[in-house]
């Protein structure tokens, strides 16, 4: 079980404040759905949560202890994983990509990779060069690769954007499994309606503030979610 509290995250680029005192809490098995306009800072927030981007200010609490960014960065990089909207796969085969986060004996790595290939329905593509994969397949390779890292927190940047219905369904069911395994998820999505019905908490990033949209989510009003109250205040 993991619980990480971030308080007062601030981040500016070129004096423009992207994140203004954002509070957010990550916990095992919880899934946060994050939406917001293009350029509102969603990716930046996720990268900070992953320990990849340095915030101008943040208090990070883990297991009742508060950490400085220097210390927290190590822990965050270790425990969490960030998935780009369009994943970056290293040149070479699917197998090589899945092997990347693994260490240890060859035989052990092999069986882990085989399990992950099966899990993401990629067994036939193991030796395929990643240059030949479709968008959906690339996303599944990235998910399987992330899973092999055994993260406790997964930060997914629009994992189902630009996907056909079939690919999206596969990805969604993989995410559901991750959640059930107790991984804390944050998912950036413009279509929260696809994720509905699993007890997710919805958040919205607007003008640097994180808010909770109040209206119930139906297909019609996704684009007009209104912020109402500030989370954690």
């Amino acid at each position: 079980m993991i619980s990480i509290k971030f308080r007062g995250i601030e981040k500016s680029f070129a004096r423009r404040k992207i994140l203004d005192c954002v509070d957010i809490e990550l916990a095992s098995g919880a899934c946060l759905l994050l939406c917001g306009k293009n350029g509102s800072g969603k990716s930046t927030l996720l990268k900070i949560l992953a320990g990849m981007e340095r915030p101008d200010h943040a208090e990070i609490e883990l297991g009742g202890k508060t950490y400085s960014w220097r210390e927290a960065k190590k822990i965050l990089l270790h425990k969490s994983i960030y998935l780009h909207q369009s994943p970056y796969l290293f040149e070479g085969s699917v197998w090589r990509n899945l092997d990347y986060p693994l260490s240890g004996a060859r035989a052990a790595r092999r069986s882990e990779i085989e399990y992950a290939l099966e899990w993401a329905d990629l067994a036939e593509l193991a030796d395929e060069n990643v240059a030949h994969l479709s968008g959906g397949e690339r996303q599944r390779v990235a998910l399987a690769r992330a899973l092999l890292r055994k993260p406790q927190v997964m930060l997914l940047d629009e994992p189902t954007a630009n996907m056909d219905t079939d690919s999206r369904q596969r990805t969604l069911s993989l995410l559901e499994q991750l959640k059930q395994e107790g991984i804390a998820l944050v998912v950036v999505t413009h279509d929260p309606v696809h994720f509905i019905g699993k007890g997710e908490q919805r958040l919205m990033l607007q003008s640097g503030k994180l808010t909770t949209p109040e209206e119930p989510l139906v297909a019609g009003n996704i684009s007009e979610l209104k912020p109402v109250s500030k989370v954690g205040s």
Partner: protein
Amino acid sequence: MQLLFAADPELWGIIGISFKVSMSALLLALPIGLLIAFGLAYGNFIGRRFLITSFNTLLSFPAVVVGLTFYILLSRQGPLGEWRLLFTQPAMIIGQMALAIPILVAMGHSALQAIDRRAWETARTLGASLPRATMTIMREARFGLLAALLAAFGRIISEVGASMMLGGNILHYTRNIPTAIALETSKGEFAQGVALGLVLLLMAFTLNGMLQLVQGKGRLAA
């Protein structure tokens, strides 16, 4: 021509010196050049732009001027005169390093720059340590980096200015292909000059062929 080579071990000696000196210079320049290229591509510090422009300017620096600079530094009265390096192979190596580094930096930087930033982020988030993430990026950029290496070698193996001034063209020690050509030609012995010239030409041809191949592969993989 075949006869000429068979008959003349001196030629082979000269070719050997050329390779020994230029290979050493390349190997020593490589880590320095790559490190700077990396810093320029991924670093975030004041003066980065200026440094990039500087190295691009150094690319077209005449070899004689590099030779002159180090000649002054290494000469008896110069600040590094105590090293007693002038007219030795190490002096030639230093001069050639100075010629190779800007090429490695400028071409290496643009090769690394061409790699998506997500590659670095992905490596890090997948748990790669800083050295491992660095190796990963270098592997992704390997074709561009290899092209930089070949181009740097092509430049230093054939340059005459720095070798002449810093090496002094001493037979069996610092006489390499380019300085030998210059000497033989000035003596009117064209046969040797032409033979060595052909060796350089052949090498230039091979290097360029490899460069084409490498760059073609790079495009294919991208």
